[in-house]
């Protein structure tokens, strides 16, 4: 085999039909990872080849955000290059994939301590967007997005506290799944705000994400996909969206005549602010010692410092009231409907220079805008999926975000798979956007 298939499922078929072997497939993937990543800078460290093991993921190369413990190595979490840690076990999410044959080939770049809507990190080289070198790569799971989009690995675990799987997925034409809070164990994952942190997945196709999810999740909690036609509601904000994004989402929602469209989501701002209260407070707790010693970089201190002044009563109330808000949201939006479609990013994917804080063209509004539709989902604890639906005028992806009730990830992925086949074909979403820049 000379060329690797575009999707994980494609490679599994190639292996099962003996067009290649697990060992050959891994060898090809490792060569590609090393040679192509020399210009993309997604990898913090390639991990040793420990051989191939039997299982449904035999021959499948994965790499994960450098926030997960791997066997014998503590993560760098974007703060340093990580370090050997004898006897340390891999995080359960990583271990579950390895137990069925996946090869963990590398650990991937990220924003420092997961604090950033881009991958900008002065400690490492800037990740390059494989779709367009001028385009930003979202964060904080930036290396994951680049490695998967470039076809260097078939999937990556990331984490999402306020969009850190969904934002990079949207900038790189990927499927980005933020899972229900608690569905995938957070053990062995460096925390940011534990009440909001979720392990997520980045892949090039919806079936690939479903396959990996069924392995890493506590499957007793996952609800099976709905067999009936999915009932869709869509929030198309009346203001704040770039016209290209608004037009693309409008066209998308028209594909189903029964979609109910709303112009306002009244709870959005309150829930976003409550997420901020929780995030600032818990980030301050996570980084307390360094924060008090003025030993945090500006990007991390920007997230954590406010946590020192937020009154404890606000934080405790935000947590105590969370269940009530989740119940009300389901009652209003996810009782008569299965899925809620909403924007992922409000604007087209920005140039990296517009969202890099050390760039002359830095525009803080464009950076903050990346978070617009993200944090409230983490406060609710619900699953959310991002995937591309169209191209903008520069050929970059315009994505949507889709929410479901807790543990209904299968409905999200079934919906995305329908869109994928209808709009992009059997090679998944991402292949369609490569070489457009």
């Amino acid at each position, binding site marked *: 085999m000379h060329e690797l298939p575009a999707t994980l499922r494609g490679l599994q078929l190639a292996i099962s039909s003996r067009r290649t072997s697990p060992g050959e497939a891994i060898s090809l993937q490792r060569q590609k990872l090393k040679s192509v990543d020399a210009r993309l800078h997604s990898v913090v460290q390639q991990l040793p080849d420990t051989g191939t093991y039997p299982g449904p993921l035999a021959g499948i190369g994965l790499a994960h955000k450098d926030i997960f413990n791997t066997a014998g190595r503590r993560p760098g979490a974007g703060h340093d290059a990580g370090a050997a840690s004898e006897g340390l076990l891999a995080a359960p999410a990583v271990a579950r994939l390895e137990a069925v044959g996946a090869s963990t080939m590398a650990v991937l770049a990220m924003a420092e301590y997961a604090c950033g809507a881009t991958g900008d990190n002065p400690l490492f080289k800037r990740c390059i967007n494989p779709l367009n070198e001028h385009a930003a790569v979202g964060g904080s799971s930036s290396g994951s997005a680049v490695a998967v989009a470039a076809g260097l690995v078939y999937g990556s675990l990331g984490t999402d506290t306020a969009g850190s799987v969904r934002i990079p997925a949207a900038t790189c034409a990927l499927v980005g799944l933020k899972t229900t809070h*608690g569905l995938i164990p957070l053990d062995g994952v460096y925390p940011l705000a534990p009440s909001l942190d979720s392990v997520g997945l980045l892949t090039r196709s919806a079936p690939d994400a479903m396959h990996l999810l069924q392995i890493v999740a506590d499957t007793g909690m996952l609800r099976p996909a709905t067999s009936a036609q999915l009932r869709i509601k869509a929030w198309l904000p009346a203001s704040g969206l770039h016209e290209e994004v608004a037009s693309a989402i409008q066209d998308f929602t028209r594909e189903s005549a029964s979609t109910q469209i709303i112009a306002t989501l009244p709870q959005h701002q309150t829930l976003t602010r409550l997420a901020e*209260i929780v995030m600032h407070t818990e980030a301050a707790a996570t980084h307390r010692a360094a924060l008090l010693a003025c030993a945090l970089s500006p990007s991390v201190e920007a997230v954590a410092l*406010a946590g020192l002044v937020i009154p404890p009563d*606000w934080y405790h109330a935000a947590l105590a009231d969370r269940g*009530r808000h989740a119940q009300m949201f389901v009652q209003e939006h996810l009782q008569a409907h299965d899925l809620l479609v909403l924007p992922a990013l409000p604007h087209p994917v920005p140039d990296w220079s517009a969202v890099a804080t050390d760039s002359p063209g830095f525009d803080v509004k464009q950076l903050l805008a990346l978070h617009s539709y993200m944090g409230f989902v983490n406060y609710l604890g619900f699953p959310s999926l991002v995937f591309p639906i169209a191209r903008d005028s520069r050929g970059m992806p315009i994505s949507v975000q889709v929410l479901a009730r807790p*543990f209904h990830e299968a409905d999200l992925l079934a919906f995305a798979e329908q869109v994928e086949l209808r709009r992009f074909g059997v090679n998944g979403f991402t292949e369609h956007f490569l070489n457009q820049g």
Partner: protein
Amino acid sequence: MPNSDLQSAKAPESDPLSGWSVVVREGLSSRGKAATPAEERRLGKTLDRLHPAANVALAGATALSGQVASPSFPSVLAQLSDA
């Protein structure tokens, strides 16, 4: 600072953020942390922005506190998955 003081805190109209400067300084000093005037002002803006949502949560949490023990958040998510 008691909740009622927070909820009723109204800054002078000449500087809507001055009402938060006490909260900011108390929060920082109680943890042995200093900040520049610009940082204090930025933190005051943050509290001012978050305050309305905090009030919603405080009211909700107060209503819940009168009830028999509320289910945990993981239990709520599990219940909602079958809603």
